[in-house]
Protein backbone atom coordinates (compact mmCIF):
# COMPACT_ATOMS: atom_id res chain seq x y z
CA UNK A 1 0.00 0.00 0.00
CA UNK A 2 2.87 2.38 0.76
CA UNK A 3 4.28 1.69 -2.66
CA UNK A 4 0.92 2.53 -4.15
CA UNK A 5 0.58 5.85 -2.32
CA UNK A 6 4.19 6.72 -3.01
CA UNK A 7 3.88 6.01 -6.72
CA UNK A 8 0.61 7.91 -6.87
CA UNK A 9 2.33 10.97 -5.42
CA UNK A 10 5.31 10.63 -7.74
CA UNK A 11 2.98 10.07 -10.67
CA UNK A 12 0.87 13.14 -9.96
CA UNK A 13 3.94 15.35 -9.69
CA UNK A 14 5.53 13.98 -12.84
CA UNK A 15 2.15 14.01 -14.57
CA UNK A 16 1.55 17.66 -13.76
CA UNK A 17 4.80 18.50 -15.56
CA UNK A 18 3.80 16.35 -18.54
CA UNK A 19 0.46 18.12 -18.56
CA UNK A 20 2.08 21.57 -18.74
CA UNK A 21 4.14 20.52 -21.75
CA UNK A 22 1.18 18.68 -23.30
CA UNK A 23 -0.81 21.94 -23.22
CA UNK A 24 1.70 23.48 -25.62
CA UNK A 25 1.25 20.63 -28.09
CA UNK A 26 -2.49 20.61 -27.82
CA UNK A 27 -3.05 24.38 -28.11
CA UNK A 28 -0.96 24.64 -31.27
CA UNK A 29 -2.57 21.53 -32.72
CA UNK A 30 -5.99 22.92 -31.92
CA UNK A 31 -5.42 26.19 -33.71
CA UNK A 32 -3.23 25.07 -36.63
CA UNK A 33 -3.73 21.32 -36.91
CA UNK A 34 0.04 21.12 -36.61
CA UNK A 35 2.07 18.89 -34.32
CA UNK A 36 4.85 21.20 -33.22
CA UNK A 37 7.56 18.61 -32.68
CA UNK A 38 9.93 21.38 -31.61
CA UNK A 39 7.88 22.03 -28.48
CA UNK A 40 9.80 19.54 -26.35
CA UNK A 41 13.01 21.28 -27.36
CA UNK A 42 11.60 24.70 -26.51
CA UNK A 43 11.03 23.25 -23.04
CA UNK A 44 14.62 22.00 -23.04
CA UNK A 45 15.89 25.51 -23.88
CA UNK A 46 13.80 26.84 -21.01
CA UNK A 47 15.33 24.25 -18.69
CA UNK A 48 18.91 25.07 -19.72
CA UNK A 49 18.35 28.84 -19.53
CA UNK A 50 16.94 28.37 -16.03
CA UNK A 51 19.90 26.17 -15.08
CA UNK A 52 22.37 28.77 -16.31
CA UNK A 53 20.66 31.54 -14.37
CA UNK A 54 20.61 29.41 -11.22
CA UNK A 55 24.30 28.60 -11.61
CA UNK A 56 25.26 32.23 -12.07
CA UNK A 57 23.10 33.64 -9.30
CA UNK A 58 23.60 30.89 -6.72
CA UNK A 59 27.36 31.37 -6.99
CA UNK A 60 26.85 35.10 -6.39
CA UNK A 61 24.98 34.35 -3.17
CA UNK A 62 21.54 35.57 -4.24
CA UNK A 63 18.76 34.19 -1.98
CA UNK A 64 17.12 31.02 -3.29
CA UNK A 65 13.54 32.28 -3.83
CA UNK A 66 14.80 35.23 -5.86
CA UNK A 67 17.04 32.89 -7.87
CA UNK A 68 14.03 30.74 -8.73
CA UNK A 69 11.88 33.66 -9.77
CA UNK A 70 14.63 35.11 -11.95
CA UNK A 71 15.42 31.71 -13.47
CA UNK A 72 11.76 31.17 -14.28
CA UNK A 73 11.40 34.71 -15.64
CA UNK A 74 14.43 34.39 -17.94
CA UNK A 75 13.27 30.98 -19.17
CA UNK A 76 9.79 32.33 -19.90
CA UNK A 77 11.21 35.32 -21.74
CA UNK A 78 13.61 33.29 -23.89
CA UNK A 79 11.04 30.59 -24.70
CA UNK A 80 8.33 33.11 -25.55
CA UNK A 81 10.60 34.87 -28.02
CA UNK A 82 11.66 31.50 -29.39
CA UNK A 83 8.07 30.35 -29.86
CA UNK A 84 7.19 33.65 -31.50
CA UNK A 85 10.11 33.47 -33.95
CA UNK A 86 9.58 29.80 -34.79
CA UNK A 87 5.95 30.43 -35.67
CA UNK A 88 6.82 33.48 -37.75
CA UNK A 89 9.79 32.06 -39.61
CA UNK A 90 9.15 28.33 -39.84
CA UNK A 91 5.39 27.74 -39.76
CA UNK A 92 3.57 30.82 -41.00
CA UNK A 93 4.99 30.66 -44.54
CA UNK A 94 3.69 27.07 -44.71
CA UNK A 95 0.19 27.83 -43.41
CA UNK A 96 -1.44 26.84 -46.71
CA UNK A 97 1.06 24.16 -47.70
CA UNK A 98 0.21 20.44 -47.60
CA UNK A 99 0.30 19.04 -44.08
CA UNK A 100 3.51 17.11 -44.54
CA UNK A 101 5.55 20.28 -45.14
CA UNK A 102 5.08 21.92 -41.70
CA UNK A 103 5.48 18.53 -40.03
CA UNK A 104 8.89 18.01 -41.60
CA UNK A 105 9.75 21.62 -40.79
CA UNK A 106 8.83 20.97 -37.16
CA UNK A 107 11.26 18.07 -37.02
CA UNK A 108 13.88 20.30 -38.62
CA UNK A 109 13.32 23.03 -36.03
CA UNK A 110 13.56 20.43 -33.28
CA UNK A 111 16.96 19.25 -34.51
CA UNK A 112 18.10 22.85 -34.97
CA UNK A 113 17.21 23.66 -31.36
CA UNK A 114 18.95 20.55 -30.05
CA UNK A 115 22.21 21.23 -31.82
CA UNK A 116 22.10 24.93 -31.04
CA UNK A 117 21.77 23.95 -27.39
CA UNK A 118 24.66 21.51 -27.77
CA UNK A 119 26.77 24.35 -29.17
CA UNK A 120 25.86 26.73 -26.36
CA UNK A 121 25.81 24.39 -23.38
CA UNK A 122 27.85 21.43 -24.63
CA UNK A 123 26.74 17.82 -24.75
CA UNK A 124 27.50 16.84 -21.17
CA UNK A 125 24.95 16.74 -18.38
CA UNK A 126 24.74 19.97 -16.43
CA UNK A 127 24.14 19.66 -12.70
CA UNK A 128 21.97 22.01 -10.70
CA UNK A 129 23.81 23.64 -7.80
CA UNK A 130 22.31 22.99 -4.36
CA UNK A 131 19.67 25.63 -3.90
CA UNK A 132 17.18 24.42 -1.37
CA UNK A 133 17.01 21.43 0.92
CA UNK A 134 13.47 20.14 0.42
CA UNK A 135 11.81 18.80 3.57
CA UNK A 136 9.70 15.65 3.42
CA UNK A 137 6.05 15.48 4.37
CA UNK A 138 4.54 12.19 5.48
CA UNK A 139 1.32 11.29 3.67
CA UNK A 140 -0.22 7.92 4.58
CA UNK A 141 3.15 6.29 5.06
CA UNK A 142 4.54 7.77 1.83
CA UNK A 143 6.81 10.74 1.44
CA UNK A 144 6.17 13.89 -0.48
CA UNK A 145 8.93 16.49 -0.57
CA UNK A 146 8.09 20.18 -0.34
CA UNK A 147 9.62 20.52 -3.80
CA UNK A 148 7.17 17.95 -5.17
CA UNK A 149 4.32 19.73 -3.46
CA UNK A 150 5.42 23.10 -4.83
CA UNK A 151 5.72 21.74 -8.37
CA UNK A 152 2.31 20.10 -8.20
CA UNK A 153 0.55 23.12 -6.73
CA UNK A 154 2.15 25.57 -9.17
CA UNK A 155 1.38 23.32 -12.15
CA UNK A 156 -2.24 22.95 -11.09
CA UNK A 157 -2.55 26.69 -10.55
CA UNK A 158 -1.16 27.42 -14.02
CA UNK A 159 -3.52 24.90 -15.58
CA UNK A 160 -6.54 26.24 -13.72
CA UNK A 161 -5.79 29.81 -14.79
CA UNK A 162 -5.19 28.71 -18.38
CA UNK A 163 -8.44 26.74 -18.58
CA UNK A 164 -10.30 29.70 -17.14
CA UNK A 165 -8.56 32.06 -19.57
CA UNK A 166 -9.53 29.98 -22.61
CA UNK A 167 -13.07 29.49 -21.35
CA UNK A 168 -13.94 32.96 -20.17
CA UNK A 169 -11.66 35.68 -21.52
CA UNK A 170 -12.11 37.66 -24.71
CA UNK A 171 -8.76 36.42 -26.02
CA UNK A 172 -9.60 32.83 -25.10
CA UNK A 173 -12.85 33.08 -27.01
CA UNK A 174 -10.96 34.49 -30.00
CA UNK A 175 -8.55 31.53 -29.77
CA UNK A 176 -11.43 29.05 -29.87
CA UNK A 177 -13.13 30.93 -32.70
CA UNK A 178 -9.92 30.98 -34.73
CA UNK A 179 -9.54 27.28 -34.10
CA UNK A 180 -13.05 26.52 -35.36
CA UNK A 181 -13.10 28.84 -38.38
CA UNK A 182 -10.21 31.23 -38.98
CA UNK A 183 -11.89 33.03 -41.90
CA UNK A 184 -15.04 33.80 -39.95
CA UNK A 185 -12.95 34.78 -36.92
CA UNK A 186 -11.30 37.31 -39.22
CA UNK A 187 -14.75 38.59 -40.21
CA UNK A 188 -15.43 39.20 -36.51
CA UNK A 189 -12.37 41.43 -36.34
CA UNK A 190 -9.93 38.89 -34.94
CA UNK A 191 -6.39 39.28 -36.23
CA UNK A 192 -5.89 35.54 -36.56
CA UNK A 193 -2.15 35.79 -37.18
CA UNK A 194 -1.76 37.59 -33.88
CA UNK A 195 -3.92 35.01 -32.12
CA UNK A 196 -1.85 32.16 -33.54
CA UNK A 197 1.39 33.88 -32.53
CA UNK A 198 -0.05 34.44 -29.07
CA UNK A 199 -0.90 30.75 -28.81
CA UNK A 200 2.72 29.83 -29.55
CA UNK A 201 3.96 32.32 -26.97
CA UNK A 202 1.56 31.03 -24.34
CA UNK A 203 2.48 27.38 -24.96
CA UNK A 204 6.19 28.19 -24.96
CA UNK A 205 6.00 30.22 -21.75
CA UNK A 206 4.21 27.38 -19.99
CA UNK A 207 6.80 24.99 -21.44
CA UNK A 208 9.54 27.17 -19.94
CA UNK A 209 8.02 26.80 -16.48
CA UNK A 210 7.84 23.04 -17.04
CA UNK A 211 11.51 23.11 -18.04
CA UNK A 212 12.44 24.83 -14.78
CA UNK A 213 10.41 22.24 -12.86
CA UNK A 214 12.21 19.35 -14.57
CA UNK A 215 15.57 20.86 -13.74
CA UNK A 216 14.61 21.33 -10.10
CA UNK A 217 13.07 17.87 -9.87
CA UNK A 218 15.89 15.85 -11.44
CA UNK A 219 18.73 18.24 -10.64
CA UNK A 220 20.25 17.99 -14.13
CA UNK A 221 19.79 19.29 -17.65
CA UNK A 222 20.98 18.14 -21.04
CA UNK A 223 20.66 19.30 -24.66
CA UNK A 224 18.68 16.16 -25.56
CA UNK A 225 16.31 16.18 -22.58
CA UNK A 226 13.51 17.76 -24.65
CA UNK A 227 13.20 14.71 -26.85
CA UNK A 228 11.90 12.22 -24.29
CA UNK A 229 9.95 14.88 -22.39
CA UNK A 230 8.38 16.06 -25.64
CA UNK A 231 7.42 12.56 -26.74
CA UNK A 232 5.81 11.84 -23.40
CA UNK A 233 3.94 15.12 -23.33
CA UNK A 234 2.81 14.48 -26.89
CA UNK A 235 1.59 11.05 -25.75
CA UNK A 236 -0.27 12.74 -22.91
CA UNK A 237 -1.90 15.16 -25.36
CA UNK A 238 -2.97 12.28 -27.62
CA UNK A 239 -4.21 10.31 -24.63
CA UNK A 240 -6.44 13.20 -23.55
CA UNK A 241 -7.54 13.96 -27.10
CA UNK A 242 -5.19 16.24 -29.00
CA UNK A 243 -6.58 19.72 -29.46
CA UNK A 244 -8.50 19.54 -26.19
CA UNK A 245 -6.94 21.56 -23.35
CA UNK A 246 -8.84 19.76 -20.60
CA UNK A 247 -7.76 16.51 -22.23
CA UNK A 248 -4.09 17.53 -22.09
CA UNK A 249 -4.37 18.13 -18.34
CA UNK A 250 -6.06 14.78 -17.78
CA UNK A 251 -3.77 12.91 -20.18
CA UNK A 252 -0.67 14.36 -18.52
CA UNK A 253 -1.73 13.41 -15.00
CA UNK A 254 -2.88 9.98 -16.14
CA UNK A 255 0.32 9.25 -18.02
CA UNK A 256 2.41 10.31 -15.03
CA UNK A 257 0.44 7.95 -12.80
CA UNK A 258 0.57 5.05 -15.27
CA UNK A 259 4.30 5.48 -15.64
CA UNK A 260 4.98 5.70 -11.90
CA UNK A 261 2.76 2.76 -11.05
CA UNK A 262 4.30 0.67 -13.76
CA UNK A 263 7.84 1.46 -12.70
CA UNK A 264 6.91 0.78 -9.09
CA UNK A 265 5.50 -2.63 -9.81
CA UNK A 266 7.36 -3.75 -12.92
CA UNK A 267 10.00 -5.61 -10.89
CA UNK A 268 7.38 -7.65 -9.04
CA UNK A 269 5.32 -8.25 -12.16
CA UNK A 270 8.17 -9.58 -14.26
CA UNK A 271 9.86 -11.48 -11.44
CA UNK A 272 12.78 -9.05 -11.49
CA UNK A 273 13.53 -9.46 -15.21
CA UNK A 274 12.69 -5.83 -15.97
CA UNK A 275 13.61 -3.00 -13.59
CA UNK A 276 12.13 0.47 -13.15
CA UNK A 277 14.57 1.80 -15.73
CA UNK A 278 12.15 0.36 -18.29
CA UNK A 279 9.51 2.91 -17.26
CA UNK A 280 9.77 4.78 -20.55
CA UNK A 281 8.28 1.78 -22.33
CA UNK A 282 4.91 2.45 -20.76
CA UNK A 283 4.45 5.90 -22.23
CA UNK A 284 4.85 4.50 -25.70
CA UNK A 285 2.73 1.48 -24.95
CA UNK A 286 0.01 3.96 -23.97
CA UNK A 287 0.56 5.95 -27.18
CA UNK A 288 0.23 2.87 -29.36
CA UNK A 289 -2.81 1.61 -27.47
CA UNK A 290 -4.61 4.96 -27.70
CA UNK A 291 -3.85 5.29 -31.40
CA UNK A 292 -5.17 1.78 -32.03
CA UNK A 293 -8.21 1.77 -29.74
CA UNK A 294 -9.37 5.39 -29.55
CA UNK A 295 -7.33 7.73 -31.74
CA UNK A 296 -9.50 10.70 -30.77
CA UNK A 297 -8.33 10.28 -27.15
CA UNK A 298 -10.30 10.26 -23.94
CA UNK A 299 -11.85 13.72 -24.32
CA UNK A 300 -11.56 14.29 -28.06
CA UNK A 301 -14.81 14.66 -29.93
CA UNK A 302 -15.12 12.18 -32.79
CA UNK A 303 -14.67 13.87 -36.14
CA UNK A 304 -13.47 17.06 -34.47
CA UNK A 305 -10.20 16.73 -36.34
CA UNK A 306 -9.95 19.18 -39.23
CA UNK A 307 -7.61 16.94 -41.19
Amino acid at each position, binding site marked *: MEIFTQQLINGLVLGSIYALVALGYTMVYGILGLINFAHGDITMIGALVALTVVQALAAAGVPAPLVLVLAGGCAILVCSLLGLSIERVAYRPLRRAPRLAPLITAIGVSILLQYSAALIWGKQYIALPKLIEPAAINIGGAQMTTLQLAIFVLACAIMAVLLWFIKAS*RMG*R*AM*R*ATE*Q*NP*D*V*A*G*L*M*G*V*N*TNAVIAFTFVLGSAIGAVAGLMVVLYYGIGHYFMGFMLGLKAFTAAVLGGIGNVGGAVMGGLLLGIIESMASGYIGDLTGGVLGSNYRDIFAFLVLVLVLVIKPSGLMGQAGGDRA
Partner: protein
Amino acid sequence: MSRGKLLEVRGLEVAYGGIRAVQGVDLAVAAGEIVALIGANGAGKTTTLKALCGLLRPKSGSLHYEGADVTGKPAYHLVRKGLSLVPEGRGVFPLLTVAENLAMGAYIRNDHDAIRNDFDRVYALFARLAERRNQLAGTLSGGEQQMLAIGRAMMSRPRLLLLDEPSMGLAPLMVQKIFETVRAIAAEGVTLLLVEQNARLALETCSRGYVMESGRVVLEDSAAALLASPRVRQAYLGE
Protein backbone atom coordinates in the same frame (compact mmCIF):
# COMPACT_ATOMS: atom_id res chain seq x y z
CA MET B 1 -14.18 58.48 -56.83
CA SER B 2 -17.74 59.81 -56.85
CA ARG B 3 -19.29 61.33 -53.77
CA GLY B 4 -22.02 59.69 -51.69
CA LYS B 5 -20.94 56.14 -52.43
CA LEU B 6 -20.39 54.01 -49.34
CA LEU B 7 -18.80 51.26 -51.38
CA GLU B 8 -17.31 51.49 -54.82
CA VAL B 9 -15.71 48.65 -56.72
CA ARG B 10 -13.82 49.14 -59.98
CA GLY B 11 -12.57 46.42 -62.32
CA LEU B 12 -12.52 43.76 -59.63
CA GLU B 13 -10.77 40.54 -60.65
CA VAL B 14 -10.37 37.56 -58.36
CA ALA B 15 -8.81 34.22 -59.23
CA TYR B 16 -8.37 30.89 -57.47
CA GLY B 17 -5.05 29.77 -58.89
CA GLY B 18 -5.84 29.57 -62.60
CA ILE B 19 -9.62 29.83 -62.22
CA ARG B 20 -10.76 33.39 -62.94
CA ALA B 21 -13.91 33.51 -60.83
CA VAL B 22 -14.50 37.27 -61.05
CA GLN B 23 -13.43 39.04 -64.22
CA GLY B 24 -13.80 42.78 -63.95
CA VAL B 25 -16.78 43.70 -61.80
CA ASP B 26 -17.86 47.33 -61.28
CA LEU B 27 -20.32 47.92 -58.52
CA ALA B 28 -21.36 50.74 -56.22
CA VAL B 29 -23.59 51.02 -53.18
CA ALA B 30 -24.74 54.35 -51.76
CA ALA B 31 -25.34 54.85 -48.05
CA GLY B 32 -28.82 53.69 -47.06
CA GLU B 33 -29.40 51.62 -50.19
CA ILE B 34 -30.51 47.98 -50.36
CA VAL B 35 -28.86 46.40 -53.36
CA ALA B 36 -29.32 42.88 -54.73
CA LEU B 37 -26.67 40.82 -56.49
CA ILE B 38 -28.20 37.88 -58.30
CA GLY B 39 -26.90 35.28 -60.70
CA ALA B 40 -26.71 31.56 -61.42
CA ASN B 41 -24.66 29.06 -59.44
CA GLY B 42 -20.98 29.65 -59.96
CA ALA B 43 -21.45 33.15 -61.36
CA GLY B 44 -18.97 34.54 -58.85
CA LYS B 45 -21.27 36.20 -56.31
CA THR B 46 -19.69 34.66 -53.21
CA THR B 47 -16.22 35.34 -54.57
CA THR B 48 -17.15 38.99 -55.10
CA LEU B 49 -18.46 39.36 -51.54
CA LYS B 50 -15.37 37.66 -50.11
CA ALA B 51 -13.17 40.11 -51.96
CA LEU B 52 -15.27 43.05 -50.76
CA CYS B 53 -14.92 42.13 -47.11
CA GLY B 54 -11.21 41.33 -47.33
CA LEU B 55 -11.32 37.53 -47.13
CA LEU B 56 -9.88 37.24 -50.65
CA ARG B 57 -7.23 39.46 -52.16
CA PRO B 58 -8.23 40.85 -55.54
CA LYS B 59 -5.92 40.09 -58.44
CA SER B 60 -6.64 43.56 -59.78
CA GLY B 61 -9.13 46.36 -59.44
CA SER B 62 -9.84 48.70 -56.58
CA LEU B 63 -12.15 48.85 -53.56
CA HIS B 64 -13.18 52.11 -51.96
CA TYR B 65 -15.12 52.17 -48.72
CA GLU B 66 -16.29 55.42 -47.13
CA GLY B 67 -14.16 57.19 -49.68
CA ALA B 68 -10.92 55.49 -48.64
CA ASP B 69 -8.97 53.03 -50.73
CA VAL B 70 -9.20 49.70 -48.86
CA THR B 71 -7.95 47.43 -51.66
CA GLY B 72 -6.17 44.42 -50.15
CA LYS B 73 -7.02 45.32 -46.55
CA PRO B 74 -7.72 42.23 -44.39
CA ALA B 75 -11.20 41.39 -43.11
CA TYR B 76 -10.33 42.13 -39.48
CA HIS B 77 -9.47 45.67 -40.49
CA LEU B 78 -12.63 46.29 -42.55
CA VAL B 79 -15.04 45.05 -39.89
CA ARG B 80 -13.64 47.72 -37.56
CA LYS B 81 -14.74 50.24 -40.18
CA GLY B 82 -18.28 48.86 -40.15
CA LEU B 83 -18.17 46.45 -43.08
CA SER B 84 -19.60 43.09 -42.08
CA LEU B 85 -20.35 39.86 -43.97
CA VAL B 86 -22.86 37.14 -43.14
CA PRO B 87 -21.11 34.34 -44.99
CA GLU B 88 -22.65 31.73 -47.24
CA GLY B 89 -23.50 28.66 -45.18
CA ARG B 90 -23.76 30.86 -42.04
CA GLY B 91 -20.31 30.13 -40.64
CA VAL B 92 -21.36 29.99 -37.00
CA PHE B 93 -18.70 28.74 -34.58
CA PRO B 94 -20.12 25.26 -33.91
CA LEU B 95 -18.39 24.66 -30.56
CA LEU B 96 -19.19 28.07 -29.11
CA THR B 97 -22.55 28.68 -27.50
CA VAL B 98 -25.12 31.01 -29.03
CA ALA B 99 -24.14 33.72 -26.53
CA GLU B 100 -20.43 33.21 -27.25
CA ASN B 101 -21.07 33.50 -30.97
CA LEU B 102 -22.86 36.80 -30.39
CA ALA B 103 -20.01 37.94 -28.16
CA MET B 104 -17.63 37.21 -31.04
CA GLY B 105 -19.77 39.52 -33.16
CA ALA B 106 -19.03 42.29 -30.67
CA TYR B 107 -15.32 41.39 -30.56
CA ILE B 108 -14.23 44.75 -31.95
CA ARG B 109 -16.25 46.76 -29.44
CA ASN B 110 -15.61 47.62 -25.82
CA ASP B 111 -18.66 49.73 -24.97
CA HIS B 112 -19.92 47.11 -22.56
CA ASP B 113 -23.28 48.67 -21.69
CA ALA B 114 -24.22 49.13 -25.34
CA ILE B 115 -23.12 45.55 -26.06
CA ARG B 116 -25.46 44.29 -23.34
CA ASN B 117 -28.28 46.26 -24.98
CA ASP B 118 -27.44 44.75 -28.35
CA PHE B 119 -27.60 41.24 -26.87
CA ASP B 120 -31.13 42.04 -25.70
CA ARG B 121 -31.98 43.51 -29.09
CA VAL B 122 -30.87 40.35 -30.92
CA TYR B 123 -32.69 38.15 -28.42
CA ALA B 124 -35.83 40.27 -28.88
CA LEU B 125 -35.53 39.95 -32.64
CA PHE B 126 -34.97 36.18 -32.48
CA ALA B 127 -36.73 34.66 -29.48
CA ARG B 128 -35.49 31.22 -30.58
CA LEU B 129 -31.93 32.35 -29.91
CA ALA B 130 -32.82 33.71 -26.49
CA GLU B 131 -34.16 30.31 -25.43
CA ARG B 132 -31.02 28.63 -26.71
CA ARG B 133 -28.38 31.09 -25.59
CA ASN B 134 -26.31 28.45 -23.79
CA GLN B 135 -26.65 25.81 -26.49
CA LEU B 136 -23.71 25.03 -28.79
CA ALA B 137 -24.27 26.74 -32.13
CA GLY B 138 -23.42 23.55 -34.02
CA THR B 139 -26.52 21.89 -32.59
CA LEU B 140 -28.91 24.60 -33.86
CA SER B 141 -31.18 23.99 -36.85
CA GLY B 142 -30.25 25.60 -40.17
CA GLY B 143 -32.76 28.39 -39.71
CA GLU B 144 -31.61 29.08 -36.18
CA GLN B 145 -28.00 29.16 -37.38
CA GLN B 146 -28.97 31.73 -40.00
CA MET B 147 -30.63 33.86 -37.31
CA LEU B 148 -27.48 33.54 -35.25
CA ALA B 149 -25.25 34.52 -38.17
CA ILE B 150 -27.34 37.63 -38.82
CA GLY B 151 -27.60 38.46 -35.14
CA ARG B 152 -23.86 38.04 -34.76
CA ALA B 153 -23.17 40.41 -37.65
CA MET B 154 -25.54 42.94 -36.04
CA MET B 155 -23.48 42.78 -32.85
CA SER B 156 -20.63 44.53 -34.68
CA ARG B 157 -22.97 47.50 -35.42
CA PRO B 158 -22.21 47.45 -39.14
CA ARG B 159 -22.72 50.35 -41.51
CA LEU B 160 -22.64 48.09 -44.55
CA LEU B 161 -23.87 44.53 -44.24
CA LEU B 162 -23.11 41.97 -46.95
CA LEU B 163 -25.49 39.00 -46.87
CA ASP B 164 -24.63 35.84 -48.83
CA GLU B 165 -27.73 33.76 -49.55
CA PRO B 166 -29.51 34.10 -46.22
CA SER B 167 -32.43 31.97 -47.50
CA MET B 168 -30.30 29.00 -48.52
CA GLY B 169 -31.77 25.68 -47.42
CA LEU B 170 -34.59 27.21 -45.38
CA ALA B 171 -38.30 26.38 -45.39
CA PRO B 172 -40.59 29.11 -46.83
CA LEU B 173 -41.78 30.29 -43.42
CA MET B 174 -38.23 30.69 -42.19
CA VAL B 175 -37.29 32.52 -45.39
CA GLN B 176 -40.16 34.95 -44.68
CA LYS B 177 -38.89 35.48 -41.16
CA ILE B 178 -35.31 36.07 -42.30
CA PHE B 179 -36.37 38.55 -44.95
CA GLU B 180 -38.58 40.42 -42.49
CA THR B 181 -35.51 40.78 -40.33
CA VAL B 182 -33.39 41.91 -43.25
CA ARG B 183 -35.94 44.64 -43.99
CA ALA B 184 -36.01 45.63 -40.33
CA ILE B 185 -32.23 45.95 -40.33
CA ALA B 186 -32.37 48.11 -43.44
CA ALA B 187 -35.04 50.26 -41.81
CA GLU B 188 -32.56 50.99 -39.03
CA GLY B 189 -30.35 52.65 -41.61
CA VAL B 190 -27.90 49.82 -42.29
CA THR B 191 -26.83 49.68 -45.92
CA LEU B 192 -27.29 46.23 -47.46
CA LEU B 193 -25.78 44.27 -50.30
CA LEU B 194 -27.76 41.08 -50.66
CA VAL B 195 -26.75 38.01 -52.66
CA GLU B 196 -29.66 35.67 -53.31
CA GLN B 197 -30.61 32.65 -55.38
CA ASN B 198 -34.24 33.57 -54.84
CA ALA B 199 -34.14 36.42 -57.36
CA ARG B 200 -37.78 37.44 -57.01
CA LEU B 201 -37.57 37.78 -53.25
CA ALA B 202 -34.28 39.65 -53.52
CA LEU B 203 -35.56 42.12 -56.11
CA GLU B 204 -38.79 42.65 -54.18
CA THR B 205 -36.75 43.51 -51.10
CA CYS B 206 -34.17 45.73 -52.76
CA SER B 207 -34.25 49.03 -54.58
CA ARG B 208 -31.53 48.23 -57.11
CA GLY B 209 -29.87 45.12 -58.47
CA TYR B 210 -26.93 43.68 -60.35
CA VAL B 211 -27.03 40.48 -62.37
CA MET B 212 -23.83 38.43 -62.64
CA GLU B 213 -22.96 35.80 -65.21
CA SER B 214 -19.63 33.96 -65.45
CA GLY B 215 -17.69 36.41 -63.36
CA ARG B 216 -19.11 39.58 -64.93
CA VAL B 217 -21.93 42.01 -64.23
CA VAL B 218 -24.24 41.75 -67.25
CA LEU B 219 -27.18 43.86 -66.06
CA GLU B 220 -27.60 46.70 -63.63
CA ASP B 221 -30.87 48.53 -63.01
CA SER B 222 -33.58 49.44 -60.54
CA ALA B 223 -35.23 46.42 -58.97
CA ALA B 224 -38.53 47.21 -60.68
CA ALA B 225 -36.87 47.38 -64.08
CA LEU B 226 -35.03 44.11 -63.50
CA LEU B 227 -38.25 42.41 -62.40
CA ALA B 228 -39.82 43.56 -65.66
CA SER B 229 -36.85 42.69 -67.87
CA PRO B 230 -37.52 39.73 -70.19
CA ARG B 231 -33.96 38.48 -69.77
CA VAL B 232 -34.25 38.38 -65.97
CA ARG B 233 -37.77 36.95 -66.08
CA GLN B 234 -36.65 34.15 -68.34
CA ALA B 235 -33.33 33.26 -66.70
CA TYR B 236 -33.95 33.98 -63.01
CA LEU B 237 -37.66 34.16 -62.36
CA GLY B 238 -38.52 30.95 -64.17
CA GLU B 239 -41.07 32.46 -66.49
